[in-house]
């Protein structure tokens, strides 16, 4: 018995540039009581697919041909009213952004009651049903939660409430669009377990969309791989992940750093011929003589924020007594979940934040007590890369001016600036044609490369990279990581690599520091941390890490 059968679906959008064909001959099935995953990178047509099924296509979109058969009805032939009657009781959905998923000005109870508007039952009965659902998704004090508003819940709880709402009417099909992407790894695992549990309990089917191969492998029975608006491969999870047929699937699987079991200095990219990849083991850690002075010494660093309103003052410790050394040419991976203080620590190191205690010493100088002229020198020696690849580039400047900025700020003379810019762009893997583009004309990966070119422009001794691969598709990620790895060897750079992604940090860092609630709870050689974690939090983090599909 098939819950959802999509057959040769073609969807296009009218745009100013003409018709855009978003889905091309898409076919797949969602059998009863199964979880089907859809994998694809940004722009592959996932969102269009969901909106077509839900009947929520934008005004300029239309279904050109094909069938969407749901529980025996052809959805493409239903009018808006009939479609709305299905949404909620038969088909429901959970979306990516947990912060925006719930209406901010209505109480949770009212929103859950509104979903049951079709039921002819008393308010108390409806509330009882809501409490039941909230308990099912493990919201503490469920009956009190009804009177509360969404902003009073954390991101993970909001997403669970959204799941409770979606499953409230016991639908036959739940569409889950990257529901855990915005959550931290430990929360992600909890949420996925819950979803699976509820699915079995209710006995519905789930269409689960994600770009995260590990999540799909963990959760789904069947998989369809989408690329450029087409389903390029489908089958059981086992088949697709272990014996992929399509070239794109094979490349995609190989590119996922989680699938590299051995530590390697070079990661495969989409350009590599599938199967040809050979891991390059990282060089052994250099033996440091006792006399070698660290490049950077952090001792008991503390950063506090005061969150003051008129009546109360709260002191928040962003970084709470952190110490470590970093030697020239070495890379430390700083790992932790959001709010663990890793970004604050990084900014304090570059003196973008003040410290409230302890010391940070770079090449023997106390960073936070440097005078203006020494500070200029420090700015040349330490450069930073920020999380948002496009947002960290000034929007009204061309790439060539962006790359030239460090030279202009530090009034570097006696160089041929144009030649230097094209040399740097080439080094970062960008052609000269990028020089005249504006940031919004770049893709995420290209913008990240401009950021890299800028960071190495003045030959710094230390690069602090804050989540340099966050938000990049797996296929782009590998290239950027390889670039960073090549450059730091070539230029003998030290690097602090901040990330929440354990699969990535392993291949980049010599040592790893795990941060939790403002403290470094564990630090050691990368291999040791992965092989034998000592601290409970590290263990929890590692077990929450959904390794690649290859591990199944």
């Amino acid at each position, binding site marked *: 018995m098939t819950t959802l059968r999509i057959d040769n679906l073609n969807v296009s959008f009218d745009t100013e540039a003409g018709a855009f064909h978003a889905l091309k001959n898409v076919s797949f099935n969602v059998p009863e009581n199964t979880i089907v995953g859809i994998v694809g990178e940004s722009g592959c047509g996932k969102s269009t697919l969901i909106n077509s099924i839900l009947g929520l296509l934008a005004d300029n979109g239309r279904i050109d041909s094909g069938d969407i058969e749901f529980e025996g009805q052809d959805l493409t032939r239903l009018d808006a009213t009939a479609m709305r009657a299905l949404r909620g009781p038969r088909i429901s959905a959970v979306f990516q952004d947990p912060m925006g998923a719930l209406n901010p000005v209505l109480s949770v109870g009212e929103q859950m009651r509104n979903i049951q508007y079709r039921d002819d039952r008393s308010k108390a009965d409806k509330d009882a049903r809501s409490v039941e659902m909230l308990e099912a998704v493990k919201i503490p004090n469920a009956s009190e939660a009804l009177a509360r508003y969404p902003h009073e819940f954390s991101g993970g709880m909001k997403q669970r409430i959204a799941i409770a709402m979606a499953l409230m009417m016991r639908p036959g099909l739940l569409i889950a669009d990257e529901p855990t992407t915005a959550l931290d790894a430990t929360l992600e695992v909890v949420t996925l377990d819950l979803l699976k549990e509820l699915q079995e309990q209710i006995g519905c089917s789930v269409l689960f969309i994600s770009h995260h191969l590990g999540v799909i492998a963990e959760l789904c029975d069947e998989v369809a791989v989408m690329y450029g608006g087409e389903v390029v491969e489908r089958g059981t999870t086992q088949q697709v992940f272990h014996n992929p047929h399509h070239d794109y699937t094979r490349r995609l699987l190989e590119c996922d750093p989680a699938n590299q079991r051995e530590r390697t200095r070079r990661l495969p990219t989409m350009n590599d011929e599938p199967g040809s990849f050979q891991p390059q083991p990282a060089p052994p850690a250099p033996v440091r003589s006792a006399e070698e002075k660290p490049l950077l010494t952090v001792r008991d660093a503390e950063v506090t924020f005061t969150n003051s309103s008129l009546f109360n003052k709260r002191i928040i410790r962003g970084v709470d007594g952190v110490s470590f050394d970093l030697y020239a040419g070495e890379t430390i991976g700083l790992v932790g979940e959001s709010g663990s203080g890793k970004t604050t620590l990084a*900014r304090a190191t*570059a003196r*973008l934040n003040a410290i409230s205690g302890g010391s940070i010493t770079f090449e023997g100088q106390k960073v936070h007590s440097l005078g203006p002229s020494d*500070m*200029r020198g420090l*700015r*040349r020696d*330490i*450069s*930073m890369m*920020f*999380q*948002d690849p496009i*947002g*960290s*580039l*000034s*929007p*009204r*400047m061309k790439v060539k001016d962006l790359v030239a*900025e*460090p030279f202009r*700020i*530090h009034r570097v003379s006696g160089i041929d600036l*144009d030649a230097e810019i094209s040399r740097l762009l080439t080094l970062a893997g960008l052609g000269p044609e990028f020089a005249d583009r504006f940031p919004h004309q770049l893709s995420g990966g290209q913008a990240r490369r401009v*950021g890299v070119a*800028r960071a190495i422009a003045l030959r710094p001794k230390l690069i602090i990279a804050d989540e340099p691969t966050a938000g990049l598709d797996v296929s782009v990620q590998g290239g950027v990581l390889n670039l960073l790895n090549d450059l730091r060897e070539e230029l003998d750079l030290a690097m602090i690599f901040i990330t929440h992604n354990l699969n990535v940090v392993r291949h980049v860092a010599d040592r790893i520091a795990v941060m939790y609630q403002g403290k470094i709870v564990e630090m050691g050689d990368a291999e040791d941390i992965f092989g034998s974690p000592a601290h409970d939090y590290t263990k929890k983090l590692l077990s929450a890490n959904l390794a690649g599909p290859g591990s199944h």
Partner: protein
Amino acid sequence: MSEAIFNPAPGRLAELWRPIRKILREPLGALGLFLVLLVIFGAVFADLLTGWDPTKINPRDRFQGPNPTHLMGTDQLGRDLFARVLYGGRIALFVALVSTGVSLVIGIILGLIAGYGPRWLDNLLILLFDAMKSFPTVMLALALVTLMGPSLTAVMVVIVLVTVPGYARIIRTQTIALKTSEYVTAAQSMGASSARILRLHILPNVIGPLVILASMDIPVVIGIEAGMSFLGLGVRPPTPSWGSILNDGFTNIRDTAWIAIAGGVPIIITTLGFTFLGETLRDVFDPRLKGR
């Protein structure tokens, strides 16, 4: 690259022409542009368009309706209304351009200081802006004019006082938003000075919306000038202003409607023209501002 430097003309011209074409494509924008050009044309070429002296009194010809000699008729003193309307346009545009320009400069400077400067200065300036804004415009104008005496300068001081807080606040809000943006932090991490960050990274990104909003404020400014002249607190008689013509029309409204029409219609045409143009400018260049 060197070729572009030697031969910039075609690109530049095209860049100037493109926004105009975009405005003309919108019917409302085209109408706005036409009305604005009409008003500017009338004000600039007032001497050529009429032979009448706008201040010449001619009691025998008073209260005439429109006729071939007096295109818009005459007022209670027999002055030619068409001439008064054309010369009144000069006053309106002069006041609008000068005071808006001064407001913009002061507003940008104060806004950048409040947004980028230390916290206490920001709090102080915000309190000052809020206090300025809390005076009802006309009340403030009345108080100031009582003290300074009615004059065009007083009108312009009022306009600047009334509009600066709004501009400064917009610049401040955006500056604060950009101050913590990653690209400004990136510039800081490279060692850029505050002056450089303000000049290269913040100002270019906050000035566009402000200029559009200021162009939409021109009708408001023209309204303030006309309103104060209507109350007899702006230009001194016999200098023509649309507001004072409207006052003449209001005083004599039971004798003739023509004076009130002559005073009000140019105000309506100008404010509508600038608003339609401003709206289109905003939609074309900065859709984010929609609904302000």
